[in-house]
């Protein structure tokens, strides 16, 4: 039997799955939109992976990361449920062992991870504010009537990026409208936005951090060549984007699964199982805790979200 390990990264925008062998080689992977339904997305990812995976491999452990890691972790009975920061660091180290800085801009959040000799020594993640994340770029693309895919290409044609206030999404948007109305070209505005996102990131998440090469950039926004260019210009360092950059989180949990002592064979037939989730608001005190109940084939599997004992009865 050849052992394999499954990692699933369920983000707000996309769901990623990867299966690796004992030498961290990617055997199969899948990358699909979450579309607001993490359970359905995971089922699709698993279907795709099970078709791609050579039958001589047996998945002996599964792990989850990303914002729906807990929900999916319970549903799949995952052995590892890990936060996305640790997962990304572990995954990236498996691919670029000498990495010193990881820049990550995802759909809803952005983070920076500093690494020395293969060990995470510092990290930061945006709090409160979602400026400088992927959803900002995609909403502005919509406003300018552009496909996100064409965004970078157009930005790269600009020789004179418009200056756009980067501190806050709301201000950036008014600034953008203003620049458009006074006559800046679309290319310059789009280039300005790519620059704004980089400056915002470096000022907020990267503030006070000592960014050293090799720098790896990942997350959805790393697919944008214009943003990469702006990062290189600002940091005066080469910025590396791995073609599998979007899989790093999933890869990271898969690697963590490998380190587990115990094993549970993962059964892909779980995609035929019926999972239902229900959000209930506890009414026993004004905290109104949101309790999430997960049912597998109509049997309650787990429930969480209550801050005190009063809520346990509800589930």
């Amino acid at each position: 039997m050849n052992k394999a390990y499954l990692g699933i990264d369920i983000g707000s925008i996309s769901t990623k799955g990867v299966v690796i062998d004992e030498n961290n080689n990617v055997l199969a992977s899948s990358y699909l939109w979450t579309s607001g339904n993490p359970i359905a997305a995971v089922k699709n990812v698993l279907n795709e992976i099970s078709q791609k995976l050579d039958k001589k491999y047996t998945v002996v452990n599964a792990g989850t990361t990303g914002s729906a890691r807990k929900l999916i972790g319970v549903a799949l009975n995952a052995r590892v449920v890990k936060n996305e920061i640790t997962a990304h660091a572990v995954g990236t180290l498996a691919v670029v062992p000498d990495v010193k800085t990881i820049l990550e801009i995802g759909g809803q959040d952005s983070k920076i991870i500093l690494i020395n000799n293969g060990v995470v020594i510092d990290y930061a993640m945006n709090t409160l504010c979602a400026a400088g994340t992927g959803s900002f770029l995609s909403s502005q693309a919509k406003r300018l009537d552009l496909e996100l895919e064409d965004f970078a290409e157009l930005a790269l044609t600009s020789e004179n990026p418009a200056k756009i206030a980067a501190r806050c999404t709301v201000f950036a948007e008014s600034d953008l409208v203003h620049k458009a109305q006074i006559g800046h070209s679309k290319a310059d505005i789009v280039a300005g936005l790519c620059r704004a996102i980089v400056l915002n990131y470096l000022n907020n998440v990267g503030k006070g951090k000592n960014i050293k090469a090799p720098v790896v950039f990942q997350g959805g926004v790393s697919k944008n060549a214009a943003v990469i260019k702006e990062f290189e210009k600002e940091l005066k360092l080469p910025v590396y984007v791995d073609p599998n950059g979007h899989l790093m989180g999933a890869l990271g949990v898969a690697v963590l699964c490998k380190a587990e002592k115990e094993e549970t064979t993962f059964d892909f037939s779980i995609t035929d199982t019926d999972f239902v989730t229900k959000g209930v608001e506890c009414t026993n005190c004004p905290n109104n805790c949101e309790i999430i109940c997960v049912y597998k084939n109509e049997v309650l599997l787990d429930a969480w979200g209550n801050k005190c004992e009063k809520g346990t009865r509800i589930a």
Partner: protein
Amino acid sequence: MAIAEKVACAPQIGDYHIIADILLQRCLNYKTMRCPPMTKRTLELGARHSPDMICTPFKTTLGNFIEAAEQGANVFVMPGVGCRLGFYDILQKQILDDLGYDCEMITLFEYIPTVKRLYASLSSINPDLTQEEFDSVFEIVVKVTVDMDNLADFMRRNIAFEVNKGDFEQCYQAYLQEVKSAQDVTEAESIGEKYKEKMESIITNKPGKPVKIGIIGEIYVVVEPFSNCNMEKWLAEHGVEIIRSGSLTQMAVAIFTVDEQVQNSGGYVDYNIGSTANDAIAQAYQMIQDGIDGIIHVKPASCSPEITAMTILQNISQDSNVPFMYMTFDTETSEAGVHTRLEAFHDMIVMKRRSENE
């Protein structure tokens, strides 16, 4: 027209309602009540009636007052000293008036943080309060504050390792329950000693070198678990020894020791940079000297003293190679994001330790 009975209430700040109870019940000729425990509703009420950009403690304490007013409180108590905190009372009184609550606001210090000032404020409301009576109450207040802070410090350093879950919390709550009716400082002291012994005899299985994480920052968010999404609880559940800077005792000391703080900041601060920023820096520097693994700096959104401190803390972090994590709290109640960051911070320290041992 009948005059409504006066019912005084202080906002919720961690477990310090004990202190408020002792001080107000014994120094005022008013009835006192505790504000209802903080919930999401408190936060929503407070935020709805506050200026949006104001610091978070303003919103939560206003929420406390509104909920207390609904249950009959009509006299509210605020310190009236410090950073913007010094002006909370004036604005909150205005907002409560506008909402139609006929209420009174007691400002304990009015910008001058001295015992004399405290007596003046209280005796202006209760003219029967003699200096001697006040002194004896104040003595108890000081003793209980110091004792409860010491007990809680000890608890935070050991709670992660208790063998019977709940021992520490139970012991601490029993102390608070018993000490609040202490009649004089001698009694308060002996209760304190009794519980110190009790707490020290709780069985733990603390490893030789546990992961040590420090917490520093703005006192309200540090002290009030509802406002920091129960950070300490998460850390304790994950086997961390917590060293917290931030208590009423420490704040009281800090007010009068700014020069020492500047001196004890390892040369990172040359002069008084205002409010609690000096203390945050001095405390962080000290924690690093004592061998901390990582420090979490917490603040409410838009807290200017702590924002000042952060820039200097970043230098300290780089020079010492001790990771800092900065957390800003506002009116969000989801713990998920906080737990994600705590877990990553903890993972990082554990992995770093492991590689150092190899």
